[in-house]
């Protein structure tokens, strides 16, 4: 993916910014222009707090381009406390210790190096919730 496209997504990548429907209150990540619940187009930005529960996960032993140097790595789906599901890498944990339903929190990490020029792309990952929070 080109860097310009990544830059346009910076509010999502760095701040987990989605949308909330002004008419029915439904919340979305990634952001949407039409509410999936009531079909309203009256949606406004909403930053999510980055906490939720692990809905599912897997550890990949075979990687797509740009992720070769990370294998094996774990990806998962986190159901945010506000409702939306987020697909992300799971970090800072031994995958054997992961359990569906456990508390997770967002962290900002290096996602991958981009192309030949080695530009580094940052964005959200999730890890088990730390007590300090």
């Amino acid at each position, binding site marked *: *993916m080109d860097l310009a*496209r990544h830059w346009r*997504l910076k509010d*999502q990548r760095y701040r987990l910014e989605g949308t909330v429907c002004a008419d029915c209150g439904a919340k979305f*990540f*990634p952001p949407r222009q039409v509410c*999936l619940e009531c079909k309203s187009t009256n949606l406004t930005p909403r930053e999510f707090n980055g906490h939720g529960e692990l*809905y*599912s*996960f*897997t*550890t*990949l*032993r*075979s*990687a*797509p*381009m740009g*992720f*070769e140097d*990370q294998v094996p*790595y774990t*990806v*998962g*789906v986190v159901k945010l406390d506000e409702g*939306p*599901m*987020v*697909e*992300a*890498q799971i970090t800072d944990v031994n*995958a054997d210790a992961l359990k*569906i339903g456990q508390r997770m929190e967002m962290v900002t990490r290096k*996602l*991958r190096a981009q192309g030949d020029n080695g530009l580094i792309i940052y*964005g959200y990952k999730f890890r088990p919730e730390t007590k300090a929070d």
Partner: protein
Amino acid sequence: MAQRKLGRGVAVVGAGMSKFGAFPEMTTRDLFAQAFREMCATVDKGFDPQTIEAIYLGNYSSDLFEGQGHTAPLLTNWVGLSPRPATRVEDACASGGVALRQAVLAIASGAYDIALVGGIEKMSSLATEKVTDTLATAGDVLFEISAGFTFPGFYAAMATAYLHAYACPTEALLNVGMKNHANGALNDKAQFGQRIADIMEARKKSAAKKGLPIPTWANELEFLRDERANPYIALPLRLFDCSPISDGAAAVLLVADELAAMFTDHPLRVIGSGQASDGALHDRATFTAIPAARLASQQAYAMANVTPVDIQVAEVHDCFTIAEIIASEDLGFFEAGQGWRAAQAGVTARAGTRPINTSGGLKSKGHPVGASGVGQVIEIWKQLRGVAGARQVAGDLRLGLTHNVGGTGQTCVVHIFERA
């Protein structure tokens, strides 16, 4: 849901396919011509291919796989059918099934009397990582793939959720692979013409020949549990839970029902057709079912005026073993959470009461993505006409079903066929 009817009846009167596999020496054109010729030969009373009025071609991504776009007119020209209208249909791995539906609707509308449905994909020219990347474009590139997900990863996440929700043992997945390999071993068009046991014995022989220690697997299950023989791709999915990278083509001839008798005395009527769409995986409330598959099958059952128990043989989209288990529930064959038990009990085996993927499925027959949905029809054609040979399901078969999924369920298309 409003019960929809076709404007007029549509029938399958010919069905053929190339062998599925990895064919570096063959071009897409060769594969398609092979499927087309075989389809022509299956028309019982013969026919003039020049009477075909339109072509609908399922093809996911010749652009990325081969650097060749605009495949529908190209292949139409290759089999001598220019200047007929040629339309390519792209709905990821459901491209073939959706092409079939487009042709069904075109004939039902009265626009055409005779249409060709093709499906084609040539995937093996690319290295495995590049294939993975090409398939990944069927997901949400901005919010799934950029997080590091792959297709095995999506279905593995579905499997993790399913195993957890229904206390299903991981090994239940392996049963699906063993069954589909056993079926594919009886299909001369299948990429893997081997049972797991055959693969196991071949590995033992090869080890002996090389003077290496001979593995001691006592049975198929032990082989599949062996991390070296059957490595994890995306936990809990292992290599033998995944469909292969394949080249292949399939072709089906559809005609208006009122004309079917000119082609054959044993047509298959297309009595049900349904299709639905959905967002990416993160837009779903659950991973243990595919909502679009449920909707598409409900539409097809309603149109056909049949229920799941009436279906005698089904080809379902087993791109991964977990997908077959979930499909068997989405189609209403089993209650949610019971699909794995049915697979384990042999209910879905060829000799079971609910045979699924008698062709070997995508797992063993192969999964040239744009061809897969059309290839499924060839098996139903053979089973319902009683010409499936060694893998023929016993009994008086009248009703069959195909279930074709694109992506993780962003597209699903279901068809029901009745032997006339």
